[in-house]
């Protein structure tokens, strides 16, 4: 295996956390560009931060564009349609056209709504998405921040996504919005429990909360991934992760929050123009993030499935997009759950089984019965 690509991982956590010694290709280049005798000055740090911010913005908008196109195209194919074909080759520019339309639309606020909460809500989901994107290890030397408690950080930030829906739904002063917001709150709080239990299983198995170390612990062939390495428990946890993350993303079959047929769009009923496009963009960035976390925790992150293949960001992308395909597949196959069925699924089924699965995994690890 090429050891040079894993050079930064050999460093201690303290060294990695130090922005002056963390080696990323771009960071090295910037440091060389404005060479400072003490190994890093304020200018190079500032440039680095600006580059990071631009990179995250560009990456998330590009991801959202690709995902929207992919969803529309796949939705068409699932329903014996063609999907977008007119705008650009294979309709690739459809999302750009839609985005342009949304940006040019009039921003309209209902008269009786509360301006502070109404305008605060669309800003929040993308903020959370950017914060989570910063800690995902994309490649052996491709990450922005690598906190020691990365997994706890992700679960903490992921829990904030629902705030935007609650605030925005209340601020719109619309009964459908409020209903959607209340549903979103109940759903997110409930399913977060199972989601964190899935994370806990990985922490239990790998003994790490640092995402990079979790990924490095799954090096080698594909049977070293936690989904297979923990016989049975890993696969069950992966299925639970997929279910709970679908619920956290408010996607069909758990889209009671939006529920076009009942709530006419739920929390974003009153939003239009650029505010709506913020929600829309964040929804798809969140989808990518959920898939990337699933790939990192269960499918070996950026590790290649076989030892002789080179590791790199392309594997994380491939795995993430496979999970995203699963989400899209779910959406266009399953009907929506009723809200009481949704709650019953979580509290009566997923939560007890997650706990049992956690105990089962603990027994497996204590006995050493892992591959």
């Amino acid at each position, binding site marked *: 295996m090429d050891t040079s690509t894993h050079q930064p991982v050999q460093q201690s956590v303290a060294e990695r956390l130090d922005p002056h010694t963390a080696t990323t290709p771009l960071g090295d280049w910037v440091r060389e560009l404005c060479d400072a005798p003490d190994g890093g000055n304020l200018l190079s740090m500032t440039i680095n931060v600006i580059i990071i911010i631009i990179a995250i913005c560009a990456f998330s908008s590009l991801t959202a564009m690709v995902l929207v196109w992919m969803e529309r195209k796949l939705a068409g194919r699932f329903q014996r349609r063609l999907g977008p074909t007119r705008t650009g080759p294979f309709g690739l520019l459809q999302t750009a056209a839609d985005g342009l339309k949304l940006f040019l639309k009039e921003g309209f606020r209902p008269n009786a709504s509360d301006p502070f909460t109404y305008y605060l809500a669309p800003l929040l989901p993308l903020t959370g998405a950017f914060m989570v994107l910063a800690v995902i290890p994309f490649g052996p030397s491709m990450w922005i921040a690598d906190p020691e408690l990365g997994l706890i950080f992700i679960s903490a930030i992921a829990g904030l996504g629902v705030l935007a829906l609650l*605030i925005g739904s209340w601020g719109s002063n619309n009964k459908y919005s409020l209903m959607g917001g209340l549903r979103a709150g109940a759903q997110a709080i409930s399913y977060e429990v199972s989601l964190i239990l899935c994370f806990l299983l990985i922490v239990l198995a790998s003994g790490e909360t640092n995402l990079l170390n979790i990924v490095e612990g799954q090096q080698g062939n594909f049977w070293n991934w936690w989904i297979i390495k923990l016989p049975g428990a890993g696969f069950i946890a992966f299925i639970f992760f997929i279910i709970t993350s679908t619920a956290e993303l408010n996607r069909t079959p758990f889209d009671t929050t939006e529920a076009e047929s009942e709530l006419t769009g739920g929390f974003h009923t009153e939003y239009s123009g650029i505010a709506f496009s913020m929600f829309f963009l964040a929804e798809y960035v969140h989808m990518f993030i959920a898939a990337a976390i699933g790939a990192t925790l269960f499918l070996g992150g950026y590790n290649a499935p076989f030892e002789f293949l080179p590791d790199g960001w392309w594997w994380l992308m491939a795995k993430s997009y496979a999970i995203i395909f699963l989400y899209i597949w779910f959406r266009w196959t399953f009907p929506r759950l009723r809200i009481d069925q949704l709650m019953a699924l979580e509290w009566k089924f997923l939560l007890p089984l997650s706990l049992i699965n956690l105990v089962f995994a603990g027994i497996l690890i204590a006995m050493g019965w892992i591959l």
Partner: protein
Amino acid sequence: MEATLTTDILFYLFSAAILGCGLMAVTVKNLLHSAIALMGCLFGTAGLFLLLDHEFVALMQILVYIGGVVIFIIYAVLLTTHLGTRYLPASTLKYISGVTLAAIVLGLVLHIDPQATHTAVNPDRTATTIDAIGYRLLDGSTNGFLIPFEVISVLLLSAMIGAATIAKHQKPGATNDEDETGGSAS
């Protein structure tokens, strides 16, 4: 984290955020706005904890306080108020007593606080790792926290069950004696 100019600036920024949001949280008329202000205050506190090298507490602050408690509060606000709900002003007497009590407590605490003599950071100190916290929590010896940990677990479970029981919606058909008396008293 070493005390440098940067940390000083950050500390005062966070302090300003905490105090500003805290003041907003207790004075703003709109209940949801004060919940959002509380959220900002808790975020500032989390940042302060990061400055003070307590990453785990900072993340727990975000995870449990903001992600759990504040969302609960906002949920309760959504359930019990709506836009246009009347603001209930307190009487002047209450304002006076509130300000007086707050001033007395502040004066007392600020009188005691400067007597804390040890203000220098121990140069050998290391940040508490999550492993150390876990081992201490499950340590059964006199130095450990096993019994409080178990007690708090039971408390959380019972609180959860109790909350679910209290908030359980009474079916319209179901007759409950307490329901009847409670209804007549109001």
